């Protein structure tokens, strides 16, 4: 029972990281219909920025995570405006855009490799103090990661539900042509959505690297599958669904790890298949942001 409670505690940390990344991923898809495989490469870039800010510039690790968020936001907007938007304006198929995103992912990862090399990098975190709650145990950093996830979700919820920008995002996601006819600058809204989701992507990359302690230039690509699984389990294009998906996948993976470590990787895949089989639109189908066609 103690191990189960401990796994639940660890699962909450995993869920927090997956939630930050998953919501960013699904927000991009929800607003622009782009299944952005390069998301993992942006996470990796952000992880390296967080590391260099902390280990080379000597800044506090959380300042490093802010740098990572800014990097994610800027890089995502550059990729969306500079690469995806021209393809979408030309009416490229979703398949073509996915292939383009693979190309971007490889280009970004190769660039990181050329600059930073292949050797793994390690955060010098020292001996971290722990906080215990029954059998559950977290480091101070992990508590901040969970708090960061909650704050990110609350802020995103507030933006989507209570601001004009949020309404515009939902309108663009639901019916872009109608939104445009109503005077919404869909291009601007899409760019802001990509900046927001890119910031979440950057935060996810930064905190993932912190949690892993040692990481290399494949960290984002390796973790992308879990993020996509959370997004799909929750219902692609639905931020609240991604939060739910992250919770389900994060906790169940850690509990599965008690049975056999290899199941940690199997659980997201199994849940993904199961949900696609039983509820193709995800656990939380019919949410706010969802669409199936690409828009610029």
């Amino acid at each position: 029972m103690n191990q189960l409670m401990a796994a639940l505690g660890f699962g909450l940390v995993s869920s927090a990281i997956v939630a930050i990344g998953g919501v960013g991923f699904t927000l991009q898809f929800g607003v622009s219909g782009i299944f952005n495989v390069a998301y993992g490469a942006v996470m990796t870039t952000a992880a390296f920025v967080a590391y260099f800010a902390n280990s080379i510039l000597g800044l506090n690790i959380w300042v490093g995570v802010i740098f990572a968020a800014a990097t994610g936001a800027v890089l995502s907007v550059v990729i969306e405006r500079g690469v995806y938007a021209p393809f979408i304006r030309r009416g490229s198929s979703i398949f073509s855009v996915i292939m383009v995103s693979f190309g971007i992912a490889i280009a970004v990862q190769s660039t990181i490799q050329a600059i930073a090399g292949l050797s793994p990098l390690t955060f010098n975190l020292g001996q971290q103090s722990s906080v215990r709650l029954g059998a559950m145990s977290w480091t101070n950093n992990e508590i901040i990661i969970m708090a960061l996830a909650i704050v990110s979700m609350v802020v995103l919820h507030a933006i989507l539900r209570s601001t004009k920008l949020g309404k515009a995002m939902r309108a663009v996601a639901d019916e872009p042509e109608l939104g445009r006819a109503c005077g919404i600058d869909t291009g601007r809204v899409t760019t802001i959505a990509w900046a927001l989701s890119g910031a979440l992507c950057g935060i996810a990359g930064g905190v993932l690297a912190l949690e892993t302690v040692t990481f290399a230039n494949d960290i984002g690509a390796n973790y992308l599958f879990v993020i996509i699984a959370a997004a799909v389990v929750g219902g692609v294009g639905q931020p609240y669904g991604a939060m739910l998906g992250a919770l389900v996948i994060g906790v169940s993976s850690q509990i599965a790890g008690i049975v056999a470590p290899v199941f940690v990787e199997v659980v997201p895949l199994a849940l993904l298949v199961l949900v696609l089989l039983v509820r193709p639109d995800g656990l939380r189908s019919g949410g706010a942001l969802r669409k199936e066609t690409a828009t610029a």
Partner: protein
Amino acid sequence: MAACQSAQTAINSAGGVRGQKVACTREDAGSDPADAVPAADKMLSSVKNLVAMIGPNAVAPATEPIIKKAGVVMLSESGDPRYDQSTDPFFFRITPADDVAGAAMAVWAIHSGLKHAAFVFDNDLGAQTSVPTLTYAYKKLGGTIATSATLVADQPSYKSEVESLLATHPDGIITETDPQTASTFMSELLQLNNGHFLPVQTDATNMTTQYEHALATTIGNSNMQKYFSGTDIAGPTPAGPAYLAFTAALQGSGTNNPSQFYGQVYVSSPYDSLIASALAMTAAKSSKPAVWKDYMTQVTGTPHAGSVTVNTYDAGVAALKKGQHITYVGANGALEFNKYQNNSGSFAAFGYNQANPEAAALYVIPSGTIAGLMMP
């Protein structure tokens, strides 16, 4: 090339093989069969009087049939367990197989008092190769396995796995993972075990600079020095005529910065096997591989009565000219080929010593001990 060039220097300075000078040539086989097969083909078709090839190692299964068909001796450092019972008469494995390392780890664990250890290996094929032999040998030596965990490499957290491991109360950990996995796992072990660490033993080939750097950063140098050790194939003993001949040949070979190779088992082993090959040719009075390959086991093995132990090529040639039987014991010790032409080799355990990476072995594990612990 340092091994071949130094052997070439030693052989040619003693007059060559039956009056013929030897020469080294190189083809880059890479690590991909698609590159290795054309490279092997090119060497076999373009080099006249080719008597032996060192390697390729990582892609041995792709090239070994071609080299066998050409009737050329292959001196391989491949760790692939498929060659544990090789029937290729031209194939000689000159360094121990990867799975043999598992038996060495078991011996060192028991010797250092780990009787109830946890096994933690990642799901990489290279890491998993050692596990069956380790399990077999560890149990045979009286050890009980606290838990055996196969980790999915490069996960962001292994806390559940660490909790499960700690619940079994192991007295140490025997492990082989990549640096990232090790760093994450060990830092969480330190955290969840309230700042206390456990003895950790690994295959020393796994303790790369990256591995040591990652671990030293996360758990600290003092923990590394106090708790970490690894087993590796025993390198050359820096003393004796064979070692002196090896280092002299390296210095005379024109190799850049030869001293960097003095303690390198992956240089001294092929050097020894080439010297043994040249002695086999001398004993066979033939440089045809189909003939002299059968003499490899005659000029090597454990020194015994009725055979003159020689440590250098020229001493071996001189003894053979007198009609004596010889046993060559090289810089890396005796070459003891079993019936599958696998050299079992001895192992040694090393501690982590940042200040002195070349520190002496903590414990030497003789090849005979390991041979008795291999799975039937």
